[in-house]
């Protein structure tokens, strides 16, 4: 307990004298703040992207693709197969007994980003007539739903904000037809808001393509998944893969999410090394400036533990503040910032997502900050403990 009291006393002395060492203390706060701000901001990108992708999905919705496809774009399901899939056991049916599902067909088209004019590919998704039931989270927020058999389409909210030429009333040109934008939709902020939607049959008719890319199916309940999957795999006429919707979207963003995270940690790591040196600098000066004080305390009888802990606590307090400031800055500037990026792959559409500075990220940032502070304070702390008291007292 004596040690504890000592530690407490010395630490309080250190902390109280902090304002005198304002300049040098600020170095740690700003240095670490910078590292954490950058780390958290970049991680917010991958978090945001993954979040948007993960949001896309319900536990009771399933996406069926051609056997061996990496994604919807690389899949092709003929009409007969689609019919078989929709009629399978486990699929929820509506009041008239018809299966709740949609054969989706995808096209890519070129549009221009509003902010920098860059040309990007986005998806036009042809959907079945039951789309609003298959996707209950989908709401038309402006204009109206498209009519079937007419060249009309609706635009996702995020897409309409990011890209030129897709506002209500605009005309969009694809290979086979010219479409009019008649409405805007939301889907709880998931990846579909980066898309355009139209009637699947109309799309397929416009360019004489006869296969769907995927079949989206609503299950009776999440528990019906296995029943449905087994039915499909035991059918020799079908060569398909069945995925939980959530899993599918998670996979799509996995690679690029990982890449961004790696970059975040590499850059953050390098910056952290720099910050450690900065912290070392500051803590060494803190110790040097108070050599007399430390030597006197040691002479009086305060033990090494008290000295070490007090220096470390000082370093920790400063780095915590720095980390909090950095995370706060990242949150202030970048949380909710909308970005559009391709999710990678040869033929994939653009994804629009918001940077998400989540509490988890803020925690990571603060942990990094404290780690840097600890590492930076370690050697100076040891120095304070090992100081040869007599020489120190004399030299000063």
């Amino acid at each position, binding site marked *: 307990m004596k040690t504890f009291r000592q530690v407490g006393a010395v630490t309080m002395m250190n902390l109280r004298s902090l304002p005198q060492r304002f*300049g*040098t203390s*600020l*170095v740690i706060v*700003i*240095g670490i*703040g*910078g*590292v954490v*701000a*950058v780390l958290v901001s*970049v991680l917010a990108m991958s978090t945001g992207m993954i979040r948007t992708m993960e949001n896309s999905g319900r536990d009771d919705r399933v996406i069926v*693709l*051609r*056997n*061996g*496809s*990496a994604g919807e774009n*690389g*899949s*092709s399901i003929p009409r007969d197969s689609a019919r078989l899939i929709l009629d399978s056991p486990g699929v929820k049916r509506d009041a008239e007994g018809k299966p709740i599902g949609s054969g989706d067909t995808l*096209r*890519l*088209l*070129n549009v221009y980003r509003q902010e*920098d004019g*860059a*040309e*990007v*590919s986005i998806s036009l998704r042809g959907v079945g007539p039951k789309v609003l039931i298959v996707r209950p989270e989908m709401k038309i927020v402006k204009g109206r739903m498209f009519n079937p058999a007419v060249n009309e389409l609706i635009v996702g909210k995020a897409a309409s904000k990011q890209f030129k030429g897709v506002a209500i009333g605009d005309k969009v*040109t*694809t*290979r*086979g037809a010219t479409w009019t934008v008649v409405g805007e939709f939301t889907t709880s902020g998931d990846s579909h808001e980066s898309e355009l939607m139209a009637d699947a049959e109309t799309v397929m008719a416009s*360019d004489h393509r*006869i296969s769907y890319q995927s079949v989206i199916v609503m299950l009776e309940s999440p528990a019906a998944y296995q029943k449905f999957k087994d039915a499909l795999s035991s059918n020799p006429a079908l*060569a398909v893969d069945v995925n939980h919707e959530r899993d599918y979207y998670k996979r799509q963003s996995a690679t690029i999410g990982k890449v961004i995270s790696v970059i975040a940690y590499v*850059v953050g790591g*390098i*910056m952290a*090394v*720099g*910050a450690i*040196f*900065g912290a*070392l*600098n500051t803590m*060494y*000066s803190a110790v*040097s400036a108070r050599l007399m004080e430390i030597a006197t305390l040691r002479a009086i009888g305060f033990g090494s533990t008290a000295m070490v802990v007090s220096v470390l606590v000082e370093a920790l307090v400063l780095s915590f503040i720095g980390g909090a400031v950095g995370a706060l800055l990242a949150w202030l500037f970048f949380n909710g910032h909308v*970005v*559009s*990026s*391709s999710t990678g792959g*040869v*033929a994939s559409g*653009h994804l629009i997502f918001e940077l998400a500075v989540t509490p988890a990220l803020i925690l990571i940032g603060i942990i990094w900050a404290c780690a840097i502070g600890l590492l930076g304070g370690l050697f100076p702390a040891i120095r304070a403990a090992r100081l040869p008291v007599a020489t120190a007292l004399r030299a000063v």
Partner: protein
Amino acid sequence: MKYFPLIWAGLWRKRTRTIFTMLSIVVAFLLFGLLQGINQGFSTVLRDLNVDRLYVSAKTNMTDGLPIAYATRIKAVPGVRALSHWTYFGGYFQDSHNPLPAFATDPEQLFQVYREIKVKPEYIAAMKKTRTGVLISDTLAKKYHWKIGDRIPVGTSIWTNKEGSNTWFFDVVGTMDLSATGGGFPGFYINHSFFQEAAAFGNGVVHYYLVGLNDPKQATQVAKTIDAMFANSSNETRTQTESELAQMQLKQLGDINFIVNAIVGAVLFTLLFLTANTMMQSVRERTSELAVLKTLGFSDAKVLVLVLVEALLLCLFAAFAGLALASLVFPVLKPIFGNFRMPMIVVSMGAGMALLLAFISGFPPAWRAKRLNIVDALAGR
């Protein structure tokens, strides 16, 4: 110059502090060198791209494809030296999550357009003779341990063949050396004629026409002619130079330039703070020494310069060390970016930033040193 020992000694007054400050600067410039180097590297790669090649794709989206019938008309455009095409085949070998960079093409013409690819003439001849032949890059051959004569099964989720199967078989008839091209260049070529015959649907479609030009200066002209030729048809074209195509693809990744600059800015700002603080501390501790120098006859201006030069030495030395480290890392990035060396411009930018850093962090303490009043300083005030 003769003041150098004096200045150098001043730097090392507190050895640990100077070393740590220098290390912080080294790390910061290592990051700067890496990030800006990559940034500039992209620009350089883009700039050095072949200007005597054009890429023709469908205007609505490359995935819509163009009819094979366009070939004769494009070839006939004046200025066109060679014409080949790519149709994306994709597919995978064993693992469906690991796609192959497979394209159907006209091999003979392909290597007329890409003259920098090294491939033996007998391989091209073998491709002509073998319908199911495939040419693979050295890298792919090494990766999957394929040899000439191997029969490779390729799975595909898009192209069902006429026999109703989703697995196609190809025979390896030759390898190519793609080292002259950038990373990511397709390295698996099958005969377009075979693909045409065997695919159950989607044949007669080409995703890119590859145009080799007689004269790079005619690039814009030829591009305009081609697009005009098919304007208002049901399959309008869009023709780009290689550089334009690459730039477009790069931009899709996001505004890399902005991100790099933002990070570098944040790093340098925090570094500025650290260095300025160090210099300030150093000057504060040396008040009496600087006063002594003034006593001895060093003018105020001289003392200012002394402190500034000290800051400069610190920053420049450490900055160059950081940049040197960064340039050592670049060969490691070769597989991603191709032949990559630290661009000279990054070194100059780095030097500039170091100078700026030295000046901004060194000026306040230098000014303080200049204004030091000898009498007060010596008296400890």
